[in-house]
């Protein structure tokens, strides 16, 4: 990629996630917690990735070997909060940006005009369009959270790393008279990472050596999805299984072909 197309930001804090695939059982608790936390409406129909709003989904990976050599793994996929997001620069109306400390890619629903250019730009399918107005069954709308506004049809949305939880953590720090920019590792954790029963999802500041993600992201077993594209995701994955790591990027497929 030509250098001019990269947008470089430097942030003091770089919120990041490290997901240990070898610990993910695909139980779906993160997906459920994400929907509840972020006011993503339920749909009585079976899940349709093409039309249903979703911020976090779990992919099932296969090593493509025959029984009994077969192996399977689960890969939860939030928004990658790319260091060099392919989505933000293309938005014609500045509805999505990567301009805030922490490096979370923002998505502003009342600004979005629904052109879907960002969706075309994102190779992770992290962005979804609201094809329908959101509907909760009668009474269930009482469980709407105050954290995220409901989105009308016609706008794009995506995972925010539960950005509101950072806001809340900063308020709490201010109330305690602490520096809101120096939070405890536990002060700000997205809903998916908080509920994960096996602790597969780690979260923290990738720049802060005191945070576990700082270390995990540098593990020899760490990889990011589609690193070859230059998106520089802030979501890392861990797996000790070679075949899983190879499925993180197309680079390996190419090499495999060369070797064979």
């Amino acid at each position: 990629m030509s250098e001019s197309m990269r947008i470089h930001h430097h942030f003091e804090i770089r919120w990041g996630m490290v997901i240990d695939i070898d610990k993910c059982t695909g139980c779906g608790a993160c997906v459920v917690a994400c929907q509840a936390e972020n006011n993503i409406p339920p749909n009585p129909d079976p899940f349709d990735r093409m039309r249903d709003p979703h911020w976090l989904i779990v992919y099932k990976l296969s090593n493509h070997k025959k029984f009994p050599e077969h192996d399977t793994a689960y890969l939860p996929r939030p928004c990658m909060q790319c260091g060099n997001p392919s989505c933000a620069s293309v938005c014609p109306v500045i509805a999505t940006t990567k301009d805030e400390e922490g490096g979370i890619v923002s998505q502003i629903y009342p600004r979005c005009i629904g052109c879907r250019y960002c969706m075309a730009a994102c190779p992770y399918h992290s962005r979804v369009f609201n094809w329908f107005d959101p509907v909760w069954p009668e009474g269930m709308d009482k469980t709407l959270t105050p954290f995220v506004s409901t989105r009308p049809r016609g706008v794009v949305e995506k995972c925010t790393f539960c950005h509101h939880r950072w806001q809340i953590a900063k308020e709490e720090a201010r109330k305690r008279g602490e520096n809101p920019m120096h939070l405890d590792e536990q002060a700000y954790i997205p809903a998916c990472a908080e509920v994960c029963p096996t602790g597969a999802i780690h979260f923290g500041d990738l720049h802060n050596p005191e945070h576990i993600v700082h270390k995990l992201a540098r593990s020899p077993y760490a990889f990011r999805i589609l690193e070859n594209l230059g998106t520089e995701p802030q979501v890392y994955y861990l797996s000790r299984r070679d075949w899983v790591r190879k499925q993180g990027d197309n680079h390996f497929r190419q090499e495999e072909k060369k070797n064979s």
Partner: protein
Amino acid sequence: MPDTQFIPEGVRRCPFSQFLIWIGFLGLILLWGLIAAALIWYKGLWVTGLDNYFGFGLWIVFDLAVIALGAGAFFTGFLTYILRIDQLKNIINLAVVIGFLCYSGAMIILALDIGQPLRAWFGYWHPNVHSMLTEVIFCITCYLIILSIEFVPLILENRQLKKISLLDHLAHNFHIYMPLFAGVGTFLSFFHQGSLGGMYGVLFGRPFVFRDGFFIWPWTFFLFILSAIASGPVFTMLIAALIEKITGRKLVDFRVKALMGKISGFLLCIYLFFKILDTWAWATGTLPKMGFSFDEMFNRHYGQGLLWAELGLCGLLPALMLIIPKVRNTPGLLYSAAILTCIGVIINRFVFTVQALAIPVMPFDQWALYIPTWTEWATSLMVVAYSALVISLAYRYLPLFPQEKALQKP
């Protein structure tokens, strides 16, 4: 005929009743499209075939195609007013009308395509200067204004309007400044044709369309300009031929058409030279660098046949036909080559829009398939019908073809 006094002097038009039937036919298509449009606005975009994988579909293909083919307007204007190729004056009016229709049609489609049409003006009020789409929005809008200005003097030349001295005077003045408008239009068009290509070329998350480039412009920026100016003239010429066929009257000298074909032919050669070079570099350089192989870009729905059709059957073949004088001067072959050229550009815009989104980028993702629904077809056809309607009216009531009178004389 009740509308005789509006019809340009010295030309013959079909009976008013026959004209009404034609208009009525177009009206039905328009109505069908309007129903679809109302449905889309009322119910939302889920009534289309678009989904989270295919944020862009038929509409964007349609928009890109008509804008490419509408390039005949700016490029013919450029050749006529700036390079002073006088022969083209005989077809420039039609080129302007077609340009106007292509751009206004694209705008109508865009109003349907965006999820929040009531916020459409955000594109002007909150522009993101880094986005190629912003460049497109501004250029298209400005250029549509220019095209409207270019269209106005033609309207003012209507027999009845001309009687009003003020309007006549106005029309005359417009003509004087036409080179200026043509120049500005050329500049604007040049940029937005390019930025439409740039829109895709910058998508570094989509290996199929991503291209390196020059400064902030990926190679697709230049390729889209070239392909547009290569196909625009023959499209204009084809429409002229189509009108002749329908009305059964000679309207434009065949030499003018052949000239348009020649212009297109040479441009097409230049375009293909770079396009093939680009495709080669992409297949052997860009793709492997991103971890992909050429074969992975195609499947049974979006096959390599599309690529070979685009480059060979609808690229090299018509290019050759158009630059060989003997072939180009045979009407049947000229028109065939022109049609192939237009199809080639449409395929190009289609694969860049749809195939680009169908290809799995994540290794564990899967190919997706896009099938437009009737609402998308209806609204696209609505724009075609709207264009046919405007051209029909323009042909009937405006001096669209300066040569018409001369050509009717035996």
